[in-house]
C-alpha cells in the first residue's frame, strides 16, 4: 500500500508511544469539578445556572456566547457551588462553574447504553443541530466549534471529509486507543459527518505506526457496509496531523494563506471529535468526558483515562500515584505543540487530550549559540518558511518584513526549534512577529 504525506518539510521525532497498550479506563469522578466557560475558540459561553442549583450529567450549564460558540454541559451530577474566576492551565483567570458531586445521575433523554446505533438520519441539518446541542468542539487541539465548521459559508462546497487519526505528536495514544476500542462508533461518526456535508467521500487518515488501528477500522468499515468511507495509510511524519498538511497529503491541495480548509473543499475532523459526533447525534450524549493519555518515561504508571470534563489535574495525577520527583515539566498535550502546565489545580477542558511528564534532562533547552546557516530550520518548516530569517526580522521588530516573508503562515508546529543545532529559540521569536502581523492584518480588514 502506498503511503501518503505532505509535500514540504517535516521532522521525525521518536514516537515514544509507551502508553499504547493501556486500554481506556474510566477515572473515578472527582469530589468537585470546575467547568470552564471558555473551552473552545470563540466567544466564552454564558452560564445559565445559578449557585445552589442541582444539575445532572449532560444538563446544559452554559449557552453559546456568539455564533462561534458552544454549549457546555455539566459533566457530573450535584450542586453548583460557585461561578467565579479561577486559574486555568496556563494560569489565566477564567470563569469556572464549580460543582460539588453527588452521585452520578444523568439528564433525561441521554442513551447511556453501549448499543451501537448505525442508522444515519436523512436530514443533514438535523445532524448539525444535534452536534451543536451536544457541545461538540474539535478535540484535535484547536477546539473550534464543530457545528460552525460544518456550516460552510455561501459559495463554498465540501468535497471530502477527512477524519484525522494521524496522532503525529510523540507520546499520545488516546486517539489510537479510541480507534481500537470505539472503532465502530468512530466510523458511524464519520458516516454522520459525511452525511452532514452532503454525502461527500470520506477518508480516515491513520499513520503507519498504528497498524492494528488501520486493520481494525478497515474491518469495521467492511462490516458496517458504509459506502464512500476509506482508510488512508499515512507516512510517519510530524506534523502529519496539522490540518493544512493533512489536506495536502490526502487531497494534494494546498490551503492558501489565511484561508479556511473549506476553500479547497475539505473538512477535517479528529477521531475523538468523530466519536463525540456519534455520541451527540445517535445517543443524545453531549461531551461530558474525554480520553486523556497520561504518560512519560519518568512516570511509573502509563494510562489512558476517560476523564470527566472539569477534573482537577492534581486529582488525575494523584490517582495514578502522584507526580514523581524527577518530573520537571507537565505538558497538557504532546511535546511538540502542547502547553506547559503552570498550575496543577487547573481543571481539564474538552480539548485536554494528554498529560505528559518530562524530566529536566528531556525538556531543558540548551543555551542558544550562533546561527551556523545550516538551513535545517527551513528544511523542516512544513509551511516552506525561512525560520532563521523570520527570527531575525522579529527580533528587529520589522513587522512589514515579517509579513512579506509570511510570518502569519506559521502554524507553530515547532519543527524549526526542534531541529536547530544552535538551539536558537526560533519559534519563540517568530510567535511575536506572527502576533504583530496578524493584528496588523485584522486592523486593515476593519478599515
Amino acid at each position: 500500500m502506498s503511503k501518503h504525506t505532505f509535500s514540504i518539510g517535516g521532522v521525525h521525532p521518536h514516537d515514544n508511544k509507551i502508553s499504547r497498550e493501556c486500554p481506556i479506563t474510566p477515572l473515578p469522578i472527582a469530589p468537585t469539578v470546575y467547568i470552564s466557560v471558555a473551552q473552545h475558540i470563540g466567544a466564552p459561553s454564558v452560564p445559565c445556572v445559578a449557585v445552589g442549583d442541582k444539575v445532572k450529567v449532560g444538563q446544559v450549564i452554559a449557552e453559546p456566547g456568539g455564533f462561534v460558540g458552544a454549549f457546555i454541559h455539566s459533566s457530573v451530577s450535584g450542586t453548583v457551588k460557585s461561578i467565579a474566576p479561577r486559574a486555568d492551565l496556563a494560569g489565566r483567570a477564567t470563569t469556572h462553574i464549580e460543582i460539588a458531586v453527588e452521585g452520578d445521575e444523568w439528564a433525561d433523554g441521554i442513551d447511556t447504553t453501549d448499543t451501537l446505533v448505525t442508522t444515519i438520519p436523512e436530514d443533514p441539518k438535523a445532524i448539525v443541530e444535534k452536534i451543536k446541542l451536544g457541545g461538540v468542539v474539535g478535540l484535535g487541539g484547536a477546539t473550534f466549534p464543530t457545528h460552525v465548521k460544518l456550516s460552510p459559508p455561501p459559495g463554498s462546497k465540501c468535497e471530502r471529509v477527512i477524519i484525522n487519526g494521524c496522532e503525529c505528536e510523540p507520546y499520545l495514544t488516546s486517539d489510537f486507543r479510541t480507534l481500537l476500542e470505539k472503532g465502530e462508533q468512530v466510523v458511524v461518526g464519520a458516516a454522520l459527518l459525511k452525511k452532514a456535508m452532503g454525502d461527500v467521500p470520506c477518508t480516515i487518515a491513520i499513520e503507519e505506526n498504528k497498524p492494528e488501528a488501520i486493520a481494525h477500522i478497515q474491518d469495521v468499515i467492511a462490516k458496517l457496509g458504509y459506502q464512500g468511507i476509506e482508510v488512508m495509510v499515512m507516512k510517519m511524519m510530524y506534523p502529519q496531523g496539522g490540518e493544512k498538511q493533512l489536506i495536502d497529503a490526502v487531497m494534494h491541495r494546498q490551503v492558501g494563506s489565511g484561508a479556511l480548509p473549506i476553500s479547497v473543499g475539505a473538512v477535517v475532523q479528529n477521531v475523538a471529535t468523530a466519536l463525540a459526533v456519534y455520541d451527540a447525534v445517535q445517543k443524545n450524549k453531549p461531551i461530558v468526558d474525554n480520553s486523556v493519555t497520561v504518560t512519560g518515561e519518568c512516570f511509573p504508571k502509563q494510562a489512558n483515562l476517560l476523564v470527566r470534563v472539569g477534573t482537577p489535574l492534581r486529582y488525575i495525577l494523584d490517582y495514578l500515584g502522584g507526580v514523581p520527583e524527577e518530573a520537571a515539566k507537565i505538558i497538557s498535550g504532546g511535546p511538540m505543540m502542547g502547553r506547559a502546565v503552570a498550575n496543577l489545580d487547573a481543571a481539564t477542558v474538552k480539548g485536554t487530550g494528554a498529560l505528559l511528564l518530562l524530566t529536566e534532562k528531556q525538556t531543558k533547552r540548551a543555551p542558544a549559540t550562533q546561527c551556523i546557516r545550516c538551513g535545517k530550520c527551513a528544511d523542516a518548516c512544513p509551511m516552506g518558511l525561512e525560520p532563521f530569517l523570520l527570527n531575525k526580522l522579529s527580533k528587529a521588530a520589522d513587522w512589514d518584513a515579517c509579513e512579506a516573508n509570511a510570518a502569519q503562515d506559521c502554524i507553530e508546529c515547532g519543527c524549526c526549534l526542534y531541529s536547530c543545532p544552535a538551539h536558537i529559540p526560533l519559534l519563540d521569536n517568530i510567535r511575536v512577529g506572527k502576533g504583530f502581523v496578524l493584528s496588523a492584518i485584522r486592523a486593515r480588514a476593519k478599515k
Partner: protein
Amino acid sequence: MNKLLVSPSPHIHSKDSTKSLMLDVVIALVPAIICSVVFYGWQELLVLGVSVASCVLLEWAITKYMLKKPSTVGDLSAVITGILLALNVPYTTPWWVVFIGAVVAIGVAKMTFGGIGQNIWNPALVGRVFLLVSFPTYMTTWSKPAGLFGVDAVSGPTPLGTIQEGLMQGSSVQELTSAYNYKDLLFANLGGSAGEVCALALLAGFVYLCCRKVIKPWITLSIFATVALTSLIFWGINPDRFTDPLFNLLTGGLILGACFMATDYVTSPMSLWGGVMFGVGIGFLTMMIRYFGSYPEGVSFAILIMNSVVPLLNMWFKQKKFGRK
C-alpha cells in the same frame, strides 16, 4: 518535583547540536587523514598537527583576549578548518607557513567577521589561497608520495601543473595524460596536496555525511556534473588542447573542494536550487580557470568567488511557500 518548568512549545529537541554536526564532519575526514598520513608519512602528520593546533589556539585566544566572549572552540569548527587547511597544502610546507595560513584562516577570514556563522568566505580556503599567492614556491613544489616508511620523495609537478606546462611547450593533451592512469588517480598515487591524493577516502567521507544527513548531496553532485559537462564539451571540440572529463573530476582539489569546502554550511546557499546554482557556478568557474587561467588549479578560487554571491542565491532561490504562488 519541586517547581514546574513552564516554557513555550516545543518541549523536546532533536539530538543535533552544532558540535555533533561538526564532529560528524571530523569523522568524515578521518579516512582522508589516515590516507594522507600513510602516503606522505610523518611530515604530513606535522602539517596536520600544526594546522589544527594553531587554528584552535588562535580561535581560543581571539575570543578570550580580543572579543572577550565565551570561547567557541568547543563547537569543533576550528578543528575542521585546521584539518581542511592541512589537507590543502603540500606535506612539505614548513610549519611556520602553515601557521601563517592558520592566522589568515581563523584570524582574518573567520573571527574578523564575528566567528562561526558570520564569515562570508570559507576560512580554510582563504588561508590556502593566501599561502598560494604569498608563498608560491612552497605551495607549488609538490612531491610524489613516498609513503609512511619511505625515505626520499621524488619532487615533481601535479598532474594539472604538468599539463599546463606541457601545453605551453606545445605538447598535446594525449601525450601528457598518457603518463597517468585513472587507477592511480583514484588510489592516491600522484603528487598533489594531501587532500588531493585519495579520491576514494574523500568520497567515503562524503557518503558518510550524506547518510548522516549532515549535508545534502546537491551542491557536490552539481559541481561534479558541471565539471564533467563543461570538460566534455571542450574535450569533444578539441581533445589536443583540452583534458577529458574523468581526468578533471579526479585531479586537483576538486573532490576535496566539492565534498568538504563547498558544502560548508556557513558559506553555501540553503535551498535546493540555490545549492544547485552554487555548484554550477563553482564547476564552470573551475573549468574556465583550468583551461584558460594562469593557475593550473581553479577549485579554490571558484569556491571563494561563489561564496561571495551566496546571499544573492539565498534571496533568488527560495523554497516555495505552502499554499502560495
